[in-house]
């Protein structure tokens, strides 16, 4: 696999994402209130919260599509809003719904980001095919999105995000529209690939299982995107007892059990 060298699992050096005292109001309503956190290189962090907690606003701020009213944001060393173009190729996003272009085949969708980055057409095609194989979609290259199942389309979306070899991958409820079996397998597959290539990931979700199965660390957000709980989860991924304890703590921080979770 032809990837940029990344500092696998390292937490030293400048964080890839850094938010300091971030505030954002919409029509006089404070959606994000004094939020600060860091995400280190190679780390997989989950931003967990109920609907309306301001998760998507935080994600939009990190993506650079929404500006802030106070505080400071740095993503890969740049201000994502003011230096929007400087993050070209360094950040990619997998959205809640697959957002595939219906007129492009699977491989054409997967190579889209590479073509935008100015990659040579042949090399872009080769990389896209390779990434489709990585997400278990070999043989589906020439199919159009409407010919694929929901899970397969989401895999194409992940391949498209991963193919550009970004420093940072943002996942916005990327598995929440899938059934539990598909969602669990995709989460596992994604984490395997992300860890193998040392990608920094910020996963925005409302499902506790997403956090417990994928993240090195969880940040639980309450109303106004205030941090209710922040804790490491690396051990919870392998130890059932720790996992149950973490789940209980997260549920308490969220103010109750999440019915969306499967277990």
């Amino acid at each position, binding site marked *: 696999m032809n990837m940029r060298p990344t500092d696998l699992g390292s937490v030293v050096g400048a964080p890839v994402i850094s938010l300091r005292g971030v505030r954002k109001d919409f029509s006089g309503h404070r959606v994000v209130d004094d939020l600060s956190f860091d995400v280190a290189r190679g780390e997989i962090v989950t931003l967990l919260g109920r609907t309306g907690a301001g998760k998507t606003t935080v994600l939009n701020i990190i*993506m650079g*599509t929404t500006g802030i009213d106070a505080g400071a944001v740095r993503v890969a060393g740049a201000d994502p809003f003011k230096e*929007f*173009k400087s*993050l*070209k*190729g360094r*950040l*990619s*996003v997998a*959205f809640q*719904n697959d*957002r595939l*272009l*219906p*007129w*492009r*085949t699977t491989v054409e969708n997967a190579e*889209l*980001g590479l*073509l*935008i*980055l100015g990659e040579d057409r042949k090399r872009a095609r080769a990389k896209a095919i390779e990434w489709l194989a990585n997400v*278990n979609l070999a043989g589906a290259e020439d199919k*159009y999105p*409407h010919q*694929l*199942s929901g*899970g*397969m389309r989401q895999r194409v979306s992940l391949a498209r995000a991963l193919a*550009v070899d970004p420093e940072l991958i943002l996942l916005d409820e990327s598995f929440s529209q899938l059934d539990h*079996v*598909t969602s669990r*397998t995709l989460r596992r*597959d994604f984490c395997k690939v992300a860890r193998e290539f040392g990608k920094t990931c910020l996963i925005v979700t409302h499902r506790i299982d997403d956090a417990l199965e994928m993240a090195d660390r969880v940040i639980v957000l309450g109303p106004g995107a205030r941090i209710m709980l922040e804790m490491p989860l690396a051990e919870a991924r392998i130890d059932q007892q720790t996992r149950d304890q973490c789940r209980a703590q997260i549920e308490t921080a969220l103010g109750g059990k999440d019915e969306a979770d499967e277990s």
Partner: protein
Amino acid sequence: MQGFNDQVIEAAHRRTVPGSRFAARAANLLARSTVRETAATTIVVLLLIAAMEVASWYVPDYIMPSPEAVSAAIWRLANTDYIHVFATLGRLAAALSFSLVAGVLLGLLMALSPLLRPFIRSLVVIDTGIPALSWILLAVFWFKNPETRIFFILIMILMPFYALSIYDGFRALPKDLVDMIESFRPSQLQTLRYLIVPHLVPYVILTTKSVIGYATRMVIFAELVASALGVGSRMGLAQSTFHIDEVLAWTFFLVVLNIVLQLLVTAIEKAVLGWRQETAVR
């Protein structure tokens, strides 16, 4: 991983089997309705020919000639007046192409420039309100050259259709897809190339499909008033010299031309929009 892959394929298969049956049933229904439609069209054409024949027994030739006389006129005109057919087709192609390009550009300008939008929109809306006859009469006063007249008339009539369609198409651009492509930080040209233009292609084709029959009628009408060359002018000449068989022969040609043009656009639609999912409603 492999197990899951099999599961996905199996699930997809489970989903596609009833869908395939449904699609096969829909295709079968469609085939049967096509046969019915062809049979109905044939019956209607035969009845019209019979009505022409019967009418020709009771009225003079300059009111209703026999189908045989019309067939003879078709053969005669095909050998002598093909230059007029080419002139009409050339004018139609040139005006349609120019209207398409200019209309698409106007539509994009309307969509992309909030500053210019109200001005262009007002112009386009005023243009759609002006009757075709007004443009034809004005063109005769304003331009000496018949080609300029016909070109002007056609673009003034056709261009607004494209401009409004493209503007509406742009407004229907899914925000989800815009956000997705912007997450890769593309240039404006790349957004245009990978998202906007492909999204607008169906709108261009559907507009062409809608206006092509209208455009054919307008070019004939414009030629009748503004030129001595072309099918419209020949129809005018035939009418003024009481050659009703030639008027009917040209009419027959125009009906066939319209069918051919519709088939051509449908073929282009199938080739360009092959990615679209076929849907059928029970």
